[in-house]
C-alpha cells in the first residue's frame, strides 16, 4: 500500500500518477448508456455524442466520450465535498450560507461547487464578518496569491490548486493569477457500434447505432386540435383572457396533449468504459509556497494526496453520471507511478489507504507551517438575497421568468 513517504518522494522526482480503470454499466455489460449530447453544427440538426478513435491493444477502436474532463472535475469535487460534509475528512473550503438568510430553497454554495471555485463572483461579493470577502484580510491574501506563493489558496481552498482556478476578475481587467489544473480525468466508452452518415455538407460523420425513443400519452386525452391561447397572463381557452399578445397554440405548448413517438440515434453500448485519471506531479512542482524546500514539498504532497483521495471517494460514492448513465467499477485498478522515461510502477491504494495518506499529508503540511481554515462561512449580500426572493416570488406567482440563452 502506498505510504506517505513514498508519495512525498514521488512528488519530488516523478512525472505523474495515473490510473486506467474499467467500468461497466450498472445494468451489466452490454446495457445501454447515455453519454452527454452536444448541439449539432447544422441548423435544427439533432443532438450528437462525441466520437473518437483510440488505439487499444494495437487496434483502432471507435470510442465515445462518456464524461468530459470538466464534468469529471465537478464530480470529483462533489465527492470531496460529500466526504467533508460527512466529516470523514478535514477539507478547507469557503461556503456561502444562503440558509442563514432564510433562503432554504437555495443550497449553500461552496468553493467546490461554485463555477469559478475560490475566485467565483458569488464568493467574491459575499460577506465575511460584514465585509465583502474580497476586501477581508483572507480575501485580500487569496487575491494576491501567485504561483510563486500560493499559500493563501492552499490554506483556504486547496481544491482550487488541484482542479485549477483563475482570478478572471482580478486586477488589471482579468489578468489575475492562473493556476493550472493538476488532475485530469475523463471517461470514454470503448468499442461502440456506430453508423456512418453524410451530413448536409456531404461530410461523413459518425452517429450511434443505438436508438433513443420518446413519446408521451396524455392521461387526459387532450387532442391536438383543441384551441388554446397563450399570452402574458398564461394560457386560457379565451384569447381575451390569456392577456396581451395572446396567440393560438397547440396543447403541447402548455404541456398537455400527446407527443408523437420519436426515434433518435442516441445512447450507446460499449465493450467497457475506461476512466483515465492523471495527477501531474510535475505540475504540482510548479507551485511554490513562499518558504523552503521542506514546506513546498509538504504542500505538494498534500495536494497529491488530495487528488488520490478525490478519486477514491468518487469511486466509493459511485459513478451516477446522468439519467441512464450509471457506471460501476469492474475489478481492481492499480495506480501507476509514471517516471520521466515513460516506465511505470504499479501502486496499491484503496479508500482507507487514501484517507490515511490524506490525513498524514494534512498533518505534515500543518507542521510545515500552513494554517488551514476549516469551513470559512460567508453570508450572501442583502441585495443578492433580495433578488433571489423576488425571483422566487415571481415564479410562484406564475409571472414567468427569463429563459436562459447561451
Amino acid at each position, binding site marked *: 500500500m502506498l505510504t506517505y513517504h513514498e508519495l512525498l518522494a514521488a512528488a519530488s522526482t516523478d*512525472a*505523474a500518477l495515473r490510473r*486506467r480503470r474499467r467500468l461497466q454499466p450498472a445494468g451489466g455489460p452490454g446495457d445501454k448508456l447515455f453519454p452527454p449530447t*452536444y*448541439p449539432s*453544427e447544422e441548423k435544427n440538426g439533432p443532438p*450528437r455524442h*462525441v*466520437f*473518437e*478513435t*483510440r*488505439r487499444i491493444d*494495437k487496434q*483502432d477502436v471507435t*470510442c465515445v466520450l462518456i464524461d468530459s*474532463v*470538466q464534468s469529471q472535475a465537478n464530480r470529483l469535487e462533489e465527492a470531496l465535498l460529500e466526504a467533508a460534509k460527512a466529516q470523514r475528512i478535514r477539507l478547507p473550503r469557503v461556503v456561502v450560507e444562503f440558509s442563514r438568510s432564510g433562503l432554504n430553497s437555495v443550497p449553500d*454554495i461552496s468553493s467546490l*461547487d461554485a*463555477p*469559478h471555485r475560490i475566485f*467565483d*463572483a*458569488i464568493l467574491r*461579493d459575499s460577506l465575511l464578518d460584514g465585509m465583502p470577502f474580497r476586501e477581508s484580510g483572507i480575501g485580500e491574501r487569496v487575491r494576491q496569491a501567485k504561483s*510563486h506563493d500560493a499559500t493563501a489558496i492552499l490554506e483556504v481552498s486547496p481544491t482550487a490548486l488541484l482542479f485549477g482556478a483563475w482570478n*478572471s*476578475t482580478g*486586477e*488589471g*481587467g482579468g*489578468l489575475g493569477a492562473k493556476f*493550472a*489544473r*493538476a488532475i*485530469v480525468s*475523463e471517461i470514454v466508452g470503448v468499442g461502440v457500434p456506430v453508423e456512418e452518415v453524410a451530413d*448536409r455538407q456531404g461530410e461523413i460523420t*459518425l452517429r450511434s447505432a443505438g436508438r433513443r425513443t420518446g413519446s408521451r400519452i396524455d392521461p387526459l386525452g387532450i387532442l391536438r386540435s383543441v384551441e388554446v391561447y397563450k399570452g402574458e397572463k398564461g394560457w386560457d381557452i379565451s384569447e381575451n383572457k390569456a392577456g396581451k399578445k395572446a396567440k393560438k397554440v397547440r396543447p403541447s405548448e402548455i404541456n398537455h396533449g400527446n407527443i408523437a413517438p420519436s426515434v433518435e440515434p442516441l445512447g450507446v453500448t460499449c465493450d467497457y468504459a475506461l476512466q*483515465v485519471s*492523471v495527477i*501531474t506531479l*510535475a*505540475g504540482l*512542482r*510548479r507551485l*511554490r509556497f513562499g518558504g523552503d524546500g521542506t514546506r513546498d514539498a509538504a504542500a505538494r504532497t498534500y495536494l497529491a494526496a488530495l487528488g488520490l483521495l478525490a478519486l477514491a471517494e468518487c469511486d466509493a460514492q459511485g459513478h451516477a453520471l446522468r439519467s441512464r448513465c450509471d457506471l460501476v467499477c469492474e475489478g481492481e485498478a492499480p495506480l501507476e507511478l*509514471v517516471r*520521466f*522515461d*515513460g516506465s*511505470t510502477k504499479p501502486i496499491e491504494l484503496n479508500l482507507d489507504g487514501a484517507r490515511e495518506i490524506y490525513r498524514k499529508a494534512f498533518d505534515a503540511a500543518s507542521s510545515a507551517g500552513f494554517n488551514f481554515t476549516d469551513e470559512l462561512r460567508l453570508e450572501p*449580500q442583502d441585495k*443578492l438575497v433580495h*433578488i*433571489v426572493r423576488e425571483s422566487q416570488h415571481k415564479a410562484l406567482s406564475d409571472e414567468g421568468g427569463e429563459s*436562459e*440563452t*447561451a
Partner: protein
Amino acid sequence: MLALEIEWLAGVCVATRTPADGAPEWPPQPDRVFSALVASWAARGEKSMERAALEWLERLDPPCLEAADVKPRTIVTAYVPPNDAKVTDIRILPERRRRQPRQFPASVILADPGTAHLRIVWEAEPDEEHLAALQALAGETSYVGHSSALVRCRFVISAGRQGTELKPDATRSAPYPGRLAELEVLHRRHVEQADAAARPRPALLAQESGSTEGPDMPESVFGRDWIVFAHAQGQRPDLRAAAVIGRTMRAALMTTYPGPIPEWLSGHTADGKPSLDPHLAVIPLANAGYPWSDGSLMGVALVLPRALETHWAEARTPQDFEDRQAFDQALAALAEADRDGLARLKLGRWGCWEIERQGADLMPTLRPFRYCAASRIWSSLTPIALDRHPKSQGAGRFAEAAAIIAAGCPRIGLPEPARVVAHKHAAVAGAPSAWPAGGSPAWQGWARPNALAHRPLFHATLEFSKPVAGPIILGAGRFFGLGLYLPTGEGAGA
C-alpha cells in the same frame, strides 16, 4: 542529437493550430513547446543558468519533428459559465449563470501509453550544464496545449531515429534568437500594464499554408491569421451592410491607433493617394454556404496583408515588434471597458452593432479556415464591385463582367481562372443577390461607401485550372468586404 520526448499522459492532445481556424493542432510546434519550457523557467524563479540553456536552444536551427498518428475528436460546442455576473444580477447563481460557447479541438493519439508521442530533434548537443538545465525545465513542464493536456517531457541525447512508430512531420514554427526576450516583454506588458492583447504570435518559419497545399500552390496577398469579432448582442445588421461595416471598422481602428497611421491600415499613402499595396481588409462572416443558411451576419474579420503578417510573425527588429503591438493596442481600445468589453460599430441607418473579439474557440461560420482552404472552384458570398463598367448589354454584359473579374485575380496574387461565370445571384446558399428585383426600394440593395456607389456589382463563380489557397477577395470593394469568396468545389485532394 538532442531530442525532447513528450507523452500526453491521458492519450489526448488538446490544442488548436492557430487561434482563428479552430482545427486541432498536431503535432504541437516547437515554438509552442518552447513557450511551455519558458513558462517552467518563470515558475522556477528565472534562474540564470536555465535562461542560458533556453537562449542556447533558441539559437539552434529549427528542429525536426517525429510524431505519432492521431485522429481528431469530434469538435463540439460546450457551454461554460463566465464569471462576470454582478451581485445585483440573479444570474450570479450557478444554475442561472448564462453560458458561453466554447470548443476544445483535440487529437486522440494512436500510440501506447509509456511511449513518446512526439519527439522534437535538434541537430546539436548541449554541454552538461545546458542539458541539466533543460532537463530541470522539462521536469516541471506539465502540459503542452490546453491545461487538460497533461504531459511528461524529458530531454535525451539521441543517436538517430529510434525505430519507433513515430513518423517525420513538418516543422512550421520554431523559436528564433530573441524569442525568449520577446516572450518576457509580452508577459510583462500583459501583467504589469494589464494589456490583454500582449500575446505572442506563432513563430512561423515560412508562409503559413493549409494542410492540403503543396509548396507551389498559388495563394492570395491576404493573410490567414484573422482577427475575428462575433456578434455579441442586440441588433444584428444585414449582410448587405458589409461595406459600411468595413468602412466603419477601419475608421474606428484609425481612431484608436496609437501614433501615425500606417498605410496598410488607412489604405492611403502619406500624400493621401490610394495605396497600391495590399492593405487591411474587413470582411463579413455570415451563415452562408450551408443548405439551410439564411445569410445572417455572424461576425466580422480583420484580414491583414499576408506579407505584413509574415513580417510581424518573424519580428526581427524592435520596430517590427512595436508596430505589431501598436495594432494590438488599437484592437484592445475598440472594446469599451465599461460595457462588458464589447466593441460598438455605429452604422448609421443600419443601426449599432455590438461585437466581441473572439479567441481560439470559434463557431464554424467564424473560422478563417473555411475561407482559406485550397480549392479549384470558388463562389462569391458578397458581390464583386467591378473595377470598371461593362460596356456590353444583355447577355454580353455578364460575359464582360466575367472577363473583368478574371482580370482582377492577378491583382491579388492569383492566376487568371480558367473559367468565370458571372451572375446576378450567388451560388452560395444564403447570400443575397447582387442587386434587388426591379422596382425594389434602394435599401434592399448592397450598401456601399461613396467611392463604390456607382460600381456595378456581380456575383461570380471562378474555376481555376488547379487549386488555389484562400482567402479570395476580389474587385474594387475587396478591402471593404465585397467580393469575398468561399471554396465550393474540389480541393487539392485532402
